């Protein structure tokens, strides 16, 4: 089984802990001739493939390097503008590197704060009375299971779509949280969890689960 990540969101909606593992690096480097047969678009300070996907370069991937020189936004590390290079015939053949970007810490914090309203709306739109928020969210590439404690802390784990028994894992993580974060006198509530014991125990738990499955935890 594969676990991709664990997130803990405090009662007030702040991300207080996240752990990422097994997220594959998706990257493709390819040599192109003139004119470039991909449509690139500059959005949110990134150069994104908008249309035209083949050989591992997918729509939504971000341009990360030109001829081995890393690019930040539309600027190369040597100061040149990426679009200036791409539009000039004499610069070809060009080697371009594209990647699926990992989430930055800021994005994670942003996403965590997005959970909150989504969960509340899911409960408001319920056709049945006395409904909880989202407990499981399924997509074609992953499954997210959420467990909310009575005190309002949310534990979330992202795993393979077929993974069953994640609720048991979440309860174990809750136990670890109460043991190694809450019982630690130097941890203050609502603050990011920076406790080595918690980290190492969580890591052990996840390794154990990956090797022997959830039923044994």
């Amino acid at each position: 089984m594969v676990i991709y990540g664990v997130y803990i969101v405090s009662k007030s909606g702040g991300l207080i802990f996240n752990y990422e593992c097994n997220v594959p690096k998706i990257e493709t480097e390819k040599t192109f001739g003139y004119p470039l047969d991909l449509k690139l678009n500059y959005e949110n300070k990134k150069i994104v493939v908008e249309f035209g996907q083949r050989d591992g370069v997918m729509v939504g991937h971000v341009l990360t390097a030109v001829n081995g020189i890393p690019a930040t936004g539309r600027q190369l590390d040597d100061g040149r503008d990426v679009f200036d290079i791409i539009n000039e015939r004499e610069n070809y053949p060009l080697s371009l590197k594209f990647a699926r970007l990992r989430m930055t810490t800021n994005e994670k914090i942003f996403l965590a704060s997005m959970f909150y309203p989504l969960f509340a709306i899911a409960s408001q739109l319920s056709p049945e009375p006395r409904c909880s928020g989202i407990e499981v969210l399924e997509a074609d590439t992953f499954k997210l299971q959420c467990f909310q404690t009575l005190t309002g802390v949310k534990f979330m784990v992202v795993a393979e779509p077929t993974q069953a028994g994640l609720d048991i894992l979440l309860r174990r993580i809750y136990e670890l949280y109460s043991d190694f974060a809450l019982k630690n006198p130097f941890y203050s509530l609502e603050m990011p969890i920076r406790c080595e014991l918690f980290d190492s125990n969580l890591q052990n738990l996840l390794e154990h689960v990956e090797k022997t499955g959830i039923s044994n935890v």
Partner: protein
Amino acid sequence: MTVHNIYIFDRYGTLLYYYEWNRLKQSGITREEEAKLMYGMLFSIKSFVNKISPLDTKDGFLCYKTSKYSLHFFETPSSIKFVLTTDVGAQNVRQFLQQIYSQIYVEYAVKNPVWQNNKPIKSELFKSKLDAFVKQSPIFVSKAN
């Protein structure tokens, strides 16, 4: 097994069709506001799913479950969004939504000559066909029975 309700949205977020079979709780806002809220939530979930996904997504968001109901989502390449809420045990609902699209929506909405793109579906034929189609499905067993 129960089917609660269905929402069909076009790509501009217009609510093309709404119908409910078993709904015990209303959201307490007008249908129009509710539709906006639903569309907004779906939009956010989609972008959320795209960001948090460890791999490149294809279909993206499929469904979510709460303690009382499941929401199933199916979007065509033409961005028509079908949303069906059921009890949490319902199986193969996505496939069922696909059939609603190809056997009901395309046949009785799109092929109807008075159909207008981006306008709510008023056709009685569509309504009765959809109703019958949902009621004959194994997902639908009314609570009353």
